[in-house]
């Protein structure tokens, strides 16, 4: 992690506050940026401007532990992998404290395997950063797929699936969406979404519709609310315009 940039309440945070007196909300954002204990360690090492192969286990362990304890205090959902690393660090530390055994002092640096893992992880982290910058289809270059319409397929077979499959497909898709960084999923009640569609379809046929005509009294209070919410949502998504020439005159709804 070269630069952590989080934006919180409009303020840019690019560095961890030195004293670790981090407001919990900041910390959460920062911690979410780490891809695991190795990533956190790399960050701590980098922050000290030291060579990874010199891994100064004492200060690093201390800092690592303070992060962990803050995370725990905050009841942050701490992956157990972070705790495993904590015990690894402690173990290395205690082995370093033991009087060095003259014989195997040279070949058996207790830090060796951790350093190896850090280097290995760093290698793939670099690789992933390179992947990120590669040109991508639809973003940096454009492929002609289906550029040409072919003659309409003879018969369209109707897909065969059950309504419940639709529901589980949607749930699964939402779950998966979590791993991508773009989220804009909220649930609205379906009746509102449906009404949005029907208002839009109506507006495609008529340029303008009188505000009042959108409401059907027979649907009762709930129906009116649904329609009203749908109108608000359409305005929010800038799909429709609401116009009124002078006060108390008719209100018209039209497509943007």
């Amino acid at each position, binding site marked *: 992690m070269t630069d952590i940039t989080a934006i919180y309440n409009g303020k840019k945070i690019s560095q961890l506050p030195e004293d670790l007196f981090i407001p919990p909300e900041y910390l959460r954002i920062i911690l979410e940026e780490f891809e695991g204990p190795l990533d956190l360690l790399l960050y701590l090492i980098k922050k000290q401007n030291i060579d990874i192969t010199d891994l100064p286990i004492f200060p690093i362990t201390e800092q690592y532990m303070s992060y962990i304890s803050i995370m725990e205090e905050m009841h942050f959902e701490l992956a157990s992998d972070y705790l495993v690393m904590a015990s690894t660090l402690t173990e290395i530390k205690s082995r370093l404290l033991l009087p060095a055994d003259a014989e195997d002092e040279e070949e058996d640096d207790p830090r060796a395997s951790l350093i190896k893992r850090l280097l290995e992880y760093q290698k793939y982290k670099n690789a992933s950063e390179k992947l990120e910058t590669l040109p991508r*289809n639809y973003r940096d270059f454009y492929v002609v797929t289906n550029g040409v*319409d072919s003659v309409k*397929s003879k018969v369209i*077979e109707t*897909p065969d699936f059950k309504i419940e499959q*639709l529901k589980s497909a949607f749930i699964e898709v*939402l779950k998966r969406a979590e791993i991508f960084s773009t989220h*804009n999923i909220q*649930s609205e009640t*379906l009746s509102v979404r449906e009404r949005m569609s029907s208002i839009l379809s109506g507006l495609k046929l008529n340029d303008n519709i009188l505000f009042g005509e959108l409401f059907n009294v027979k649907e009762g209070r709930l129906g009116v609310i649904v329609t009203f919410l749908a109108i608000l949502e359409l305005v929010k998504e800038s799909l429709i315009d609401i116009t009124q020439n002078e006060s108390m005159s008719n209100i018209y709804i039209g497509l943007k």
Partner: protein
Amino acid sequence: MSYSLENIIECLLLVSDEPLTVNQILKILDDKKITKKKIELSISNLNERYIDRAIHIKQVASGYRFQAKTGLEAYISKLKDKGTNRFSKAFLETTAIIAYKQPVTRGDIEDIRGISINSNIIRTLLELEWIKVVGHRETPGKPELFATTSKFLDYFDKNTLSDLPEISDVDSL
């Protein structure tokens, strides 16, 4: 390198997933010197290029689009056979997103799925009349907004969208 107007239009028509109108092309090019007439002329010049070729530009209801000429159906159907994705997961998920999040654009669906979708899926849904275009979003490209139709509900034997299985725990996801 700069391309001739004809070559630019050719590229746009091929890269686009949807037919393009002269007005849409005008807007994309955003150049005062280019008129509607010029674009229409370019398209007809382009078509001369394609006299002996197996494809040409056709004007359909929603604009201009490249189409295969007749004669290659046998080959094309072999090509398309492998792409039958009506029963695929992608098809099911696309349908589900349109049903539960309508009205949505293709880009919305791609954002949610995290994957670009095959144009065939949208086209099949439109051909099945399970979805229709209910408008365009006021963002660059004016993408089409899709919503499900009553035919879609009929297929599942439902009256309204609110009869679809409820997704109550979405908020907690």
